[in-house]
């Protein structure tokens, strides 16, 4: 009888621990469709056990405590809010996706939100434009612009760059590009592109009759001529591959920050038609 009681107590204390035992803690910023697709892709690429915490479902989530108590082997941060929460963790490796603020850190790697510049350059070639305007904040997207400059030079495209330190400067810088560019390259720069300034890009494109190439298909409806859209499922799958490597024992400093491998072109035919640009295909 005493033995049976011991077994019952042991099972009662052990079962919750067993239920919480997992390898990957998935921190998801919210239940947005893009995040869900990224998670879906991750699950298809990584079969390790997971616990998903959607931060927007709670008023406050103590990620440090969760990690300390549950000790996952890996954290997948989906979105900027999730990345901000994961930054508090120092020991556990973090793979970040769907975030604009990923930068090099000891325990952090992931996939950037910036499609390879070659993809854009290829599109500009198809659009037959040579002078492409870019507005960006060097502190946030300076590293990307360097690669973009190199890629553009290779295909004979001249990038006319304007730098901004605050969103309000964007409008003046856009005005300074009037008459000097054949197309506008809208970078996913959270300083240069905000809710208040995004309209100015498309108004500029309309007034100057130049195509605006964006990074998200949702801007096509506002007047973008084309977009190089990131395949979020593929991005999740790419993160799953990273996670598998880390779970297999690879060191995180051997896995660099990479660009998304899955991208696709989206075009707005009516805008292109108004700009007298022939139909473009990938």
């Amino acid at each position: 009888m005493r033995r049976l009681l011991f077994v019952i107590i042991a099972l009662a204390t052990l079962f919750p621990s067993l239920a919480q035992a997992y390898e990957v803690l998935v921190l998801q910023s919210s239940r947005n469709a893009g995040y869900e697709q990224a998670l879906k892709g991750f699950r298809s690429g990584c079969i390790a056990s997971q616990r998903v915490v959607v931060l927007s479902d709670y008023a406050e989530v103590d990620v440090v405590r969760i990690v300390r108590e549950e000790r996952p082997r890996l954290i997948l941060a989906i979105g900027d809010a999730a990345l901000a929460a994961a930054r508090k963790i120092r020991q556990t490796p973090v793979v970040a996706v769907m975030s604009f603020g990923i930068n090099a850190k000891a325990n952090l790697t992931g996939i950037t939100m910036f499609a390879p510049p070659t993809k854009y350059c290829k599109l500009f070639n198809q659009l037959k434009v040579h002078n492409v305007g870019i507005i960006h904040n060097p502190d946030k997207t300076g590293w990307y612009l360097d690669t973009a400059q190199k890629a553009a030079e290779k295909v004979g495209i001249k990038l006319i760059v304007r730098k901004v330190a605050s969103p309000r400067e964007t409008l003046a810088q856009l005005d300074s590009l009037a008459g000097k560019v054949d197309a506008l390259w809208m970078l996913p720069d959270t300083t240069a592109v905000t809710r208040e300034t995004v309209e100015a890009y498309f108004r500029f494109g309309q007034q100057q009759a130049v195509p605006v190439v964006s990074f998200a298909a949702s801007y096509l409806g506002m007047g973008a001529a084309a977009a190089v859209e990131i395949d979020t499922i593929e991005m999740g799958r790419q993160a799953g591959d990273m996670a598998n490597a880390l779970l297999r024992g690879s060191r995180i400093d051997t896995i660099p920050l990479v660009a998304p491998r899955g991208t696709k072109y989206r075009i707005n035919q009516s805008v292109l038609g108004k700009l007298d640009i022939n139909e473009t295909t990938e």
Partner: protein
Amino acid sequence: MLPYMRPLNFRSSFQYRLFRVFTLLTAFIAIVFLTIYITFEIRNQRAHISAQLHLQAQHLAETIRLPLYAENRPVLQQLAEGATYQIPNLRGVVIKASNGKVLTDVRLPGSDNNADVIEETVEVRSDTLASSPESAISGGTEPGPTLIGKVSLKRSTEDLLLMSYRLVAISCAMTVGFWLTVSLICYLVLRRVTKSFNALMQGIRAMQSGDLSARINVISDDEPGRAASAVNDLANALSARTIELENANRELEAFNYSVSHDLRKPLTVIYSYCQFIQEFCSHNLDTQCREYLREICEGSQRMNQLIDTLLEFASLTRSELHQENVDLSEIARNAAKGLVLIEPHRRVSLCITEGINVKGDRNLLQVAMDNLLSNAWKFTSKREEAVIEFGVMEDEGMPTYYVRDNGNGFGMTDANKLFIPFHRLPGTGVDGHGIGLATVERIIKRHGGRIWAEGEPEKGATFYFTL
């Protein structure tokens, strides 16, 4: 003239009163509806202008969103000034940043007078379609457009005032037109509706004026029509009764005349034989018998005089009137002379106004004046200094003649009994048959006049008459 004989005043007519009530009521209702309509319309116009200004402010807000976010004052100033040219009656544009800082304030003359200005303020928010890069990629929804600033438009209401004046003028003109039309229709309807009523009133007025043969034209079977029929029936009955009375009166007068005439013959025989006995057989009679015979003679004479009076009274209504200009003053003077001759010893002061001329039957008027003056003469017989006066005065615009004395007088309670034939007031102590004043009344009535008396016991009497 009696009150009910007055001609019908238009203002007091039934038709006019109804018309007045209808028109005043219609005017009142029209004014009430006019006021409500104008008030509603002006409020509506003001609301419309406010809504229009709100839309214009929203349009301007859409236009200035980007320069407002960039706080580009020159562009904002240019857009605000452009708005003042494009939007009519605009008096001012104020653009503020989200922190309340005024970036542009364009004011035109007249914008400070808040009484004549409508102001609309619109918030300038980020484009609802615009999304941040995070949302654009993740497919998330934004919490809502962010506030960038505010734009206020001030607009004058001068055009609204002009519009209101025009509205009031047109509405008033239409109301007056409506009122006049309704009043005209009301008048025509009332005229038709009250036609039978007017016919009834015309008929009654004709009957009142003495035309008993007049009948009311019954033109409908409504209430006035039925009343007209009833009045016609009454008039017929009255007419028949009048004829009966006239016949009876004529028979009575004929009876009176024949009785008086037939009595005279045996009376003459009695009187003649009494005279004969007195002259030829009185010596055969004793003193007592002669006294009786004298009483019989005197009685016969008095009876003869009474018969003469009756015949004369009866003839007043039978003889025809011969109208001519008559000098009443002269008649009065002659009558007074006769009275003085009869009793020359009496001290009577006779005051007769000269130049009283009337139109009437000379003989009848002479009888009337004889009676009135002899009446005054008789009733002042006890006065040492009697005063008898004949004159004329104005009463309600008509000449009224009078005979006044300072004789015995009478109480006013007996005033109506003075003119009853053969009726004498008790305690007068004056000889007579009681037919004199009745004769005067009949003569005055035959002339279409009226006679009445005023008196006070022991102070005198005044007889007034009109012709």
